[in-house]
């Protein structure tokens, strides 16, 4: 099975965020970038399928500016991906939904791709539309919020579950298709030191992103705001559990006004 996995560098979950000087975006200098959380699961799932289906290969693709995009591609190679393609964006415009999908699709289309995997959404802008947009661009079906993705060789179909608002859905689908992954079978593996060292010398194919269309929809950042720091919880003081319960219900009803 030819698997393509699309990944994105995002700020580490614990990083303190800071607005850029013009106040419109995140200041990318202020944070450390890592492989997005769901993308880690997508890489893990790609590698699990590669191990389960003989003759498979995993090609990792990312769109974004350097050096962080190149770094996450190398980290994916260190985890076990076979090849990598970097679609280099000229600037930090990755936040506009649709732009990344178009750039990724240009790189993915010429590659053999039975299965295109990505995380169901990235932890930075949380748009969650790349799988569907890739499906449209590649002319194949897409599925988001996928868990328990398996290949049934006898039926030549993918079998999987989706965790949607309706509940847990059971699906089967032929390839090719795009899958936005929520969870792999396992926790994402960590790379071993020799593989990390080797990945530094791996060849990464570089593809220009191509110019954006001169006219068309514009998605313009205006303001990036951080919430006031949380001051910590107001603690309920009490002598008995009953008193704690009464005080909390009163606070929820009269102060927070969220009691049903």
């Amino acid at each position, binding site marked *: 099975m030819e698997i393509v996995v699309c990944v994105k560098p995002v700020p580490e979950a614990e990083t303190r965020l800071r607005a850029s000087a013009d106040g419109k975006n995140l200041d990318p200098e202020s944070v450390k970038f890592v492989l997005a959380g769901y993308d880690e699961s997508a890489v893990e799932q790609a590698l699990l399928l590669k191990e389960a289906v003989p003759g498979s290969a995993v090609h990792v693709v990312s769109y974004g500016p350097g050096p962080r995009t190149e770094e996450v591609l190398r980290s994916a190679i260190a985890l076990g991906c076979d090849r990598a393609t970097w679609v280099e964006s000229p600037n930090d415009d990755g936040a506009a939904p649709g732009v990344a999908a178009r750039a990724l699709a240009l790189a993915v289309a010429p590659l053999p791709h039975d299965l295109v995997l990505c995380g169901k959404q990235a932890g930075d802008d*949380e748009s969650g539309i790349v799988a*569907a947009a890739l499906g449209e661009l590649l002319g194949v*079906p897409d599925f988001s919020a996928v868990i328990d993705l398996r290949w049934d060789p006898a039926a030549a179909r993918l079998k999987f579950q989706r965790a949607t608002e*309706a509940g847990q859905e059971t699906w089967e689908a032929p390839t090719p*298709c795009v899958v936005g992954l929520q969870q792999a079978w396992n926790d994402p593996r960590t790379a071993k030191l020799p593989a990390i060292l080797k990945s530094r010398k791996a060849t990464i194919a570089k593809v220009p992103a191509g110019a954006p269309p001169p006219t068309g929809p514009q*998605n313009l950042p205006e303001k990036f705001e*951080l919430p006031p720091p949380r001051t910590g919880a107001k603690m309920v003081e009490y002598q008995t559990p009953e008193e704690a319960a009464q005080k909390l219900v009163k606070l*929820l009803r009269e102060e927070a006004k969220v*009691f*049903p």
Partner: protein
Amino acid sequence: MTPTVLVVGELQDGHLTGSTLEAIGVARSIGGATVVGFVAGSAAKGTAVEFGRFGVAKAYAAEDARVDSAPTAVTAHLLRPVLESSGASVVLVGGTTFGRDLLGRLAIAWNAAVATGVTELSPVEGGLRVRRPIFGGRATETRRLVAERVGVAIRPHAFPSPTEAAVTCAVEVVATIEIPAPLLAPQRLGVARPAGGSGPSLTDASIVVSGGRGIRGPENFHLVEELAAALGAAVGASRAVTDAGWRPTSFQVGQTGRAVSPQLYIAVGISGAIQHIVGMVSSRTIVAINSDASAPIFKVADYGIVGDLFQILPALTAEVRRARGLS
């Protein structure tokens, strides 16, 4: 300009979902907009009438049984001719998996500027201004979508459900069109409702009560469920609980589970790993109940109770029932 705003209906048990109703409310709040509805499925014609209950006088129905077990891409495909014939310039959907999947398709096929998880929205020259939490609620961004075509998925519970304003809804059944074979090949074979069934679904609920490792075992989870039942809340769980198999994965709130943003989130016996926090931090009010006063959950909570949950929970459930007049 009086834009035409098209609300795409998502169905559950043959009715419009709560998220769809919220989208209708937002559409009606856009000054001067003409609001129309769209719904696809085997019973689309009958369901489309429901738009009228909330003041929408015109709806399009793609009566097509092929939709029922097909991917969202099929609904997006059936929507295309309606986008043209209705003259819509804005598409609104509920911020569910369905809504995001639909907008991803429209971003390309309809060449729209799109935004998901939107909590505020206002018309601006040539488009819409939207505000949305990002980074798991750790930041908020404002963006201007300047385009002839705009698609927005609203964040669940960020907007109130619309008041009923019954009008007669003229339903136009749209002609059946060809659907590309690859989109029809996948099949949804079934849906398992979250166990515990009668309560609201996790992402639809305005109150969520979640249990964590502090519950100590599946045999004690009824304490969480009883509090949830008293509040009319959905039940969630931390990853520790679902990994241990005390509750199915579908209960998991957090980075690898579901992101929720209810009016009230009560975390019981959950220490507050960042993995969990990103899935619930944008809730309006957060309550933490934990025996460890230094648990990180208290840093993001609005109200905290340090104590033995095995004593606090029964007392709280009883007090909630009393306060709500339940016997």
